[in-house]
């Protein structure tokens, strides 16, 4: 079945200043369009090539070379979408990637709608059940339906908070509605005064939630993760070990200085940008000092710190410095066992922490940084790192990759809508409108919040009315 006669194209890597960008094109004319703009050696044409091959060459527009590229040629049906697919690996940078997309469109492709590649994959039977569900969610996020995946990402506190707010909203709505349904038994006159106070509180709660939304980080490929520690603590071997576990390397770019290497990896669906830094120690060496300063600034801007401790040598003032630097950050501490005896234990880390920050203990603010013992030699503990990362991510402690951003925008809009609706309730109260007008906006707020937690109204209101208020007859 191929009802999609048009060929679609989109930038499939995040729009960023990363080293490599991929522009993807799918559809009946994908190869034909690619041939129009591709210039390879010996005038080769892509349409004559075998499926699933890579071709070096240039993208040319009006005789001008735009970029040096690798083109992946994949013919139907064994592609993600089930259609002929071209992937152009070009040099990253917003300008080049967009330019290539423009050229594709000029030559007959159409910009893909959000989720359209996956939609085609689904329609062409290329996705299994669970994948398709998630896809449906993703596509319909424009149709106001809750993203199921987003619901599972929304864990713990925020969900509880939203449910708490919803519970209050439905209670007040049910009271008003029960009075409207049974005015001779239940009186709602003058309820606006009470309600307004309640709404003020709810507005404040919503405002708090809204202020936690972070939409300043649009251009991000993943969670900015910095590996730090004293020199020779085993940072680089950790990075290699993580990369070895996961073969899903997307980009591999040299950092801006020799001292910082950035890797993009994907651990069970969570994207991390890992930056391996120069070891931190007090130094007079100018070159090394630059590296250390750089590291400090990376730590400042990181979403997550992985702090590698060499367990074979005692904690010293360099460790103390690192502790201070990462104190306000989300972090994981790794105790790297070498062949030598473990001198530093989990308890020592905790002890050191309270020694440095006594105030925290008094405030009952306990040390909650995960400490994991690992062995780079036997790879013990790598699993646990992954598990811990996942847990932090799903608990909402880490939340800055692309997917989460989409989710956040939707959540933020929903929160914003709920906020506006509640504000309108107060406006109605102030304007002296009758009580039945309040419930119109109350229900809207309830519904908006429900779209975050993935719940629909259904019979909620009717159930609440009957369970809380005694109806007559």
């Amino acid at each position, binding site marked *: *079945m191929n*009802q999609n006669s048009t060929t679609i194209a989109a930038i499939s890597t995040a729009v960023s200043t990363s080293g490599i960008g991929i522009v993807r094109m799918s559809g009946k004319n994908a190869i034909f369009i690619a041939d129009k703009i591709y210039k390879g050696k010996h005038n080769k044409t892509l349409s004559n090539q075998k499926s699933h091959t890579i071709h070096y060459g240039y993208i040319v527009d009006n005789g001008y070379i735009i970029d040096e590229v690798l083109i992946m040629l994949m013919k139907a049906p064994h592609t993600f979408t089930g259609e002929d697919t071209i992937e152009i690996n070009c040099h990253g940078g917003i300008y080049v990637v967009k330019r290539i997309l423009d050229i594709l469109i000029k030559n007959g492709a159409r910009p893909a709608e959000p989720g359209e590649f996956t*939609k085609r994959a*689904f*329609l062409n*039977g290329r*996705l299994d*059940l669970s994948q*398709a*569900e*998630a*896809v*449906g*969610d993703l*596509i*319909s996020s424009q*149709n*106001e*339906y*809750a993203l*199921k995946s987003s619901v599972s990402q929304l864990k713990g506190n925020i969900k509880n908070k939203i449910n708490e707010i919803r519970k209050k909203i439905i209670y007040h*709505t049910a009271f008003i*509605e029960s009075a*409207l*349904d*049974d*005015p*001779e*038994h239940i009186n709602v*006159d003058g309820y606006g005064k009470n309600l307004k106070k309640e709404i003020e509180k709810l507005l404040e709660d919503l405002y708090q939630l809204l202020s936690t939304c972070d939409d300043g980080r649009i251009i991000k490929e993943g969670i900015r993760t910095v590996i730090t520690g004293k020199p020779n603590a085993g940072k680089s071997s950790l990075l290699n070990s993580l990369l070895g576990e996961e073969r899903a390397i997307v980009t591999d770019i040299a950092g801006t200085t020799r001292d910082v290497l950035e890797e993009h990896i994907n651990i069970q669906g969570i994207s991390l940008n890992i930056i391996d830094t120069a070891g931190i120690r007090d130094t007079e060496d100018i070159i090394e000092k630059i590296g250390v300063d750089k590291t400090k600034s990376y730590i400042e801007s990181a979403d997550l710190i992985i702090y590698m401790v060499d367990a074979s040598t005692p904690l010293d003032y360099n460790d103390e410095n690192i502790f201070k630097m990462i104190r306000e950050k989300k972090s994981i501490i790794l105790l790297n066992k070498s062949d030598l005896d473990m001198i530093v234990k989990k308890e020592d880390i905790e002890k050191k922490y309270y020694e440095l920050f006594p105030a925290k203990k008094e405030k009952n603010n306990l040390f909650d940084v995960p400490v994991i013992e690992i062995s780079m030699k036997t790879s013990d503990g790598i699993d646990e790192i992954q598990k811990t990362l996942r847990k932090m991510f799903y608990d909402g402690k880490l939340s800055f990759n692309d997917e989460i951003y989409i989710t956040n925008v939707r959540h933020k809009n929903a929160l914003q809508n709920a906020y506006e609706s509640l504000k309108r309730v107060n406006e109605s109260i102030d*304007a*002296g*409108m*009758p*009580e*039945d*007008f309040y*419930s*119109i906006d109350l*229900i809207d707020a309830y519904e908006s919040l429900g779209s975050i937690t*993935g719940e*629909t109204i*259904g*019979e909620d*209101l*009717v159930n609440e*009315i*009957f369970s809380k208020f*005694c*109806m*007559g*007859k």
Partner: protein
Amino acid sequence: MKYSANSVWESKEQYDVVVIGAGHAGCEAALAAARLGFRTIIFTVSVDSIALMPCNPNIGGSSKGHLVREVDALGGEMGKVIDRTFIQSKMLNKSKGPAVHSLRAQADKARYSSTMRQVLENQENLEIKQAEVVNILTENNRVSGIQILSGGIYYAKAVILCTGTYLKARCIYGDVSTYTGPNGLQAANYLTDSLKELGIKMYRFKTGTPARIDKRSVDFSKMEVQFGDEHVIPFSFTTNPDDVQINQVSCWLTYTNKKTHDIIKANLNRSPLFSGMIEGTGPRYCPSIEDKVVKFADKERHQVFIEPEGIDTNEMYIGGMSSSLPEDVQYAMYRTVPGLENVKIVRNAYAIEYDCIDARQLKPTLEFRNIDGLFSGGQFNGSSGYEEAAAQGLIAGINAARKLQGKECIVLDRSEAYIGVLIDDLVTKESHEPYRMMTSRAEYRLLLRQDNADQRLTKIGYEIGLISEERYQNLILKEKLIDEEIKRVSNTYVGTNEQVQILLEKYGSALLSSGTSLAELIKRPELSYDILSLIDNKRPEFPKNISDEISEQVNISIKYEGYIKRQQKQVEQFKKMEKKKIPDNFDYDNVKSLRIEAIQKLKEYRPVSIGQASRISGVSPADISVLLVYLSGISG
């Protein structure tokens, strides 16, 4: 009980439509079919019980009043009959917004019933027949007629089931149980088995009614009097308002107390619910007094309304105290209520159990999905209330007729009418209790007002053929006058002259510092279109019988403009999903990405649109997305 006939005979008459049951659903169904030109016969177990009101003695009430108005706007009968037989009338929620204003009238039960009976008796194309229907006859999943208890067979092209609470009915109080319909009327004991044989899934529901008492045994001096409205507004758009300004009777308010509750609590073990004698599911919205006392134990008292059953009878209804406790407990508990110390019970309170269907077997047209030409309406569909019944009966009657006309059936959606909400809920949502209309069920209630039912539905009624040309032209005129008047007041400016400022001051409204339009002033909560007539020198004269209605429409349209526009926007969104139709023969098994539960539910309900599918419990938003994606793929 399975019916076996001793002698079978065939009626010589040819009918188009058979209606089974002559309650509020059956009456509307039969009238609609007959009025649309189809030869119709209506069966009832007792001609004396046509349009019987076996429970509360009123028509309308919150959201139910809307239904009556809508029935009337489509060309139904209920509104006209209650306008001729009411003995008290009130507009409920008058201090609230126009969306929740709702008419409720106390009926003279006997006169309501006999008036409706006369309408039926004099209706061309309609015959009344007293007989118990025992079988539904089908050929190849198409209805062909019915059989009655005597063995007689009546052939018909369409059959409408409106059996109310009569199927295998059983009335219970204390340890007494009788196999009768309401008021000791004969139950219909055979039809259930015939329906089951046709593969129809049955439920057993329960409801109840309070005692009726002798007016002479009531001390009204201990109660608060409840008057009707000074100015009565009729239900029917065709009734001249002057004709309903009658002398009204009063109702009375009193309360239960601790003594009442103690007696009830002490005797709960004698309740048939307690002993397990009642299996049916009761409604939460009209709980028995025992339910109320148990469930809301912290409430010190409950209201009790004493309402007359009619002009020519001493019987009164004890609103708020339905019960299935034994007779001696009923006496004891009623007599604790102030004013009822010496009360004499004419008819005991009782609970009633009856067979009804799981309405999810119906299309939104109220035709059975699996049996062509078989329709149903009313309490048989799992609803409750006279008004809900009438609304469904009317739609079932209209659609049976349209099917025979070869026309597309009528389905009102949730944004068009309470009737649409009612039927959509019934055929879409799983329900374990009799369904009652509630204003909170209507998402777009600001648009579905009782005052604009004619503007919403009378054109549809006209197209169907139940609204006369004259009535239709009157509506067109009314709408034109409303539109023109809204334009006029929006473009009429008043200055800051003394006359204006005096008026504003009188109503506590801020004085004007510069000129403004009348429409802007109408928007102020303390002012209205009517109030402003004093400073509106060019206000036109409207035809007297619709003058009030026009003023009301102009006032509401301008005053609540912002809210109304917002709901209209929501309706647009809603319509988009309703318009995404799912083909009749859509194969859900083919959509591999749907969850198993969703596939089962969707196959069971066979929703007509994505919108309807989204309201089915057990179908998740993710499933809807998958369906959307899949359907968009099919349509290209």
